[in-house]
């Protein structure tokens, strides 16, 4: 007689060290092998979209900060661009350059956290702290600019809340020089560590067609092998003026689209962001950052879907205007939400330990998933 066995349900979260916030994963286990993963969302739902309907357009910006709290600048930028497109506002050159610098610094800071926490989930504590040490430097640059370290409310519709500090560009250049060798340090310590490769290569593979069907964007899609980057495909702001490459997953350590590829694409993107920064800091023109901010922000009746390349993928804002001071509807397409939906497919047949590695590699932020 065969021994009778049962599947075990393991609740991972909402209080768990590695769910990156308040996510609850319901793991159906056969021994330690994952049969299915069911993400339960909504623990961090704050009604951002509904709130926006009773706010004026500029008042929505602080809410966008709180979605993807690791990339507040990029969220601000996406929203500002959406409203500017509705109102046909031309922003000054200086504003465009500062926005690009901020967005790329933010991308580096965000990828640092992604890489760091992915390593931490797999047990590498030291690279985590090294990356957070370096991230502090970026946050200090932001603090110097707008006084906040996490939620900036900096990029406004038609301009910026403050001009940059006189020392900002010099310090940014110093940071670029400081950070370049640090990427190699992380590569030595973590990326090409044999154990790290064993844990992430060939784990949580998502082939390209499947990634496209799920609607993956950003680094997660590029790791599956498609060089799709909105900065290149659908240029916004002044990204068409810079020279940078779009790294894609090549399956260096395993299969294209595995966890290691998703991790390494982020490392490479940090290098590309540094490249953009190097070009941008030398070209910032003079000007008034507030000259194009309209007195009354009242877009004409209509709707718009505007998308930007967030560190986590395509952040889309769908805004309906009814011609009043408040948006009629603001809907956000959050890249983390899309990535999370593939957890079941990514983890099937792997072990419990791999769920953590995969969750770390898709780099979700719960603030954005639940909004």
């Amino acid at each position, binding site marked *: 007689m065969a021994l009778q066995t049962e599947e*075990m349900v*393991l609740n991972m979260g909402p209080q*768990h*060290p*590695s769910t990156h916030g308040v996510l609850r994963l319901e793991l159906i286990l056969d021994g*330690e092998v994952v049969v299915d993963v069911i993400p339960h969302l909504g623990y961090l739902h704050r009604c951002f979209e509904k709130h926006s309907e009773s706010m004026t357009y500029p008042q929505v910006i602080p809410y966008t900060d709180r979605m993807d709290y690791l990339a507040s600048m990029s969220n601000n930028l996406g929203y500002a661009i959406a409203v500017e497109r509705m109102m046909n506002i031309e922003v000054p050159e200086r504003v465009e350059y500062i926005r690009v610098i901020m967005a790329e610094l933010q991308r580096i800071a965000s990828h640092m956290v992604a890489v760091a926490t992915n*390593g*931490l*989930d*797999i*047990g*590498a*504590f*030291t690279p985590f*702290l*090294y990356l957070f*040490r370096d991230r502090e430097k970026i946050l200090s640059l932001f603090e110097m600019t707008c006084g906040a370290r996490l939620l900036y409310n900096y990029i406004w519709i038609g301009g910026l809340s403050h001009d940059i500090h006189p020392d900002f560009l010099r310090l940014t250049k110093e940071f670029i020089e400081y950070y370049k060798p640090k990427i190699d340090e992380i590569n030595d*310590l*973590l990326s090409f*560590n044999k*154990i*790290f490769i*064993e*844990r992430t290569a060939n784990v949580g593979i998502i082939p390209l067609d499947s990634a496209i069907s799920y609607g993956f964007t950003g680094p997660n899609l590029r790791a599956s092998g498609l060089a799709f980057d909105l900065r290149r495909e659908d240029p916004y702001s002044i990204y068409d003026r810079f020279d940078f490459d779009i790294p894609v997953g090549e399956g260096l350590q395993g299969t294209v689209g595995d966890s290691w590829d998703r991790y390494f694409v982020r490392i490479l993107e940090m290098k590309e962001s540094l490249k953009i920064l190097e070009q941008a800091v030398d070209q910032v023109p003079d000007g008034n950052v507030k000259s194009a901010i309209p007195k009354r922000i009242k877009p004409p009746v209509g709707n718009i879907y505007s998308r930007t390349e967030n560190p986590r993928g395509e952040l889309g804002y769908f805004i309906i205007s009814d011609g009043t001071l408040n948006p009629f509807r603001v809907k956000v397409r959050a890249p983390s939400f899309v990535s999370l939906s593939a957890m079941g497919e990514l983890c099937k047949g792997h*072990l*419990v*330990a*791999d769920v*953590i590695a995969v969750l770390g590699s898709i780099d979700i932020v719960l603030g954005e998933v639940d909004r």
Partner: protein
Amino acid sequence: MYNFLVDILGNEIIVMIITASLPLFLFVIPFALVAVYAERKVSAHMQDRLGPMRVGYHGLLQTVADILKLFQKEDIVTEKADKSLFNIAPFLVFAGSYAAFAALPFSSIFIGTNTDIGLFYIIAISSLVVAGILMAGWASNNKYSLLGAMRSAAQIISYEIPTALVILSLVMFTGTLNLHTMSELQTSSFLNWNILGGSETGIIKIILIPFMLIGCLILFISTLAEVNRTPFDIPEAESELVAGFHTEYSGMKFAMFFLSEYANMFAVSAIITSVFFGGYQSPFGYLGDLAGIDWLVPIEQLFWFSAKGLFFVFVQMWLRWTLPRLRVDQLMTVCWKYLIPYSFVNLIIIGIITLL
């Protein structure tokens, strides 16, 4: 020292109890306090941090403060836990790891119990830890604890095989299971340490060295796994299983697990030291011998034993703060597909060389 105490107290059993518990009070508890502090400082400096700085000079009293805090904490036993097992488990784990100290030769005159089957006893008694961990995991009535305990049992039992095989090859080589005798054999100079071919001479010594190095490496890796340290800290894998088998423990019972982890770290380092690195022997003569002060020699021996042991403890900490952790199946692969065959081949080769 044993005979000296028997003369004073006149009762052998009392003397045995005293000598066996001396390592606990003289060494294990102070060592655990220092090791916890050292681990925090080592990790902090490796990570560009300062570590504990507030309690005492550079945080020296931090662990004392932590222990005081743990004493005051409420002793929580979850409602659905199997209470008797839950309560016994930490003591069993601690007893298992502490009992190994009884057979460790700290110096030529100070050894808890100078038994002829010292190594066998240590391997046997440290298996008690597995029972304790399984009890803790099962009695907690928590899925994370259970997973952690199951992993831990599988891991410790698997890694005992390469450990035992390597130790067996050294037992064949030296012809003794007694750690004290084994240390005595490696006397006078570091050239006589087993890692460098022991007291053999000429060509045989040179042939032996690579196999001894391999044996030492295997022993180090497998003991690392036995004490559940990174990269083999899967039973406690913080980011997966919260805290593994001791998730539900708090207060002093948690402290017992913690204490036994650090006691274990030193115990396995001491075994490596005794087996391969001359035990308590100085690498080059003794000051006491030079100056003609007899009582200085055992103290120096204690110093060398602790220093070598602490070096390996430091290597364990170093690895912990550098490496990520393996997955449970990879851990088993390392053990069954690599360590066991290699250590077995090593055993045969060392055996043949010894026969020659």
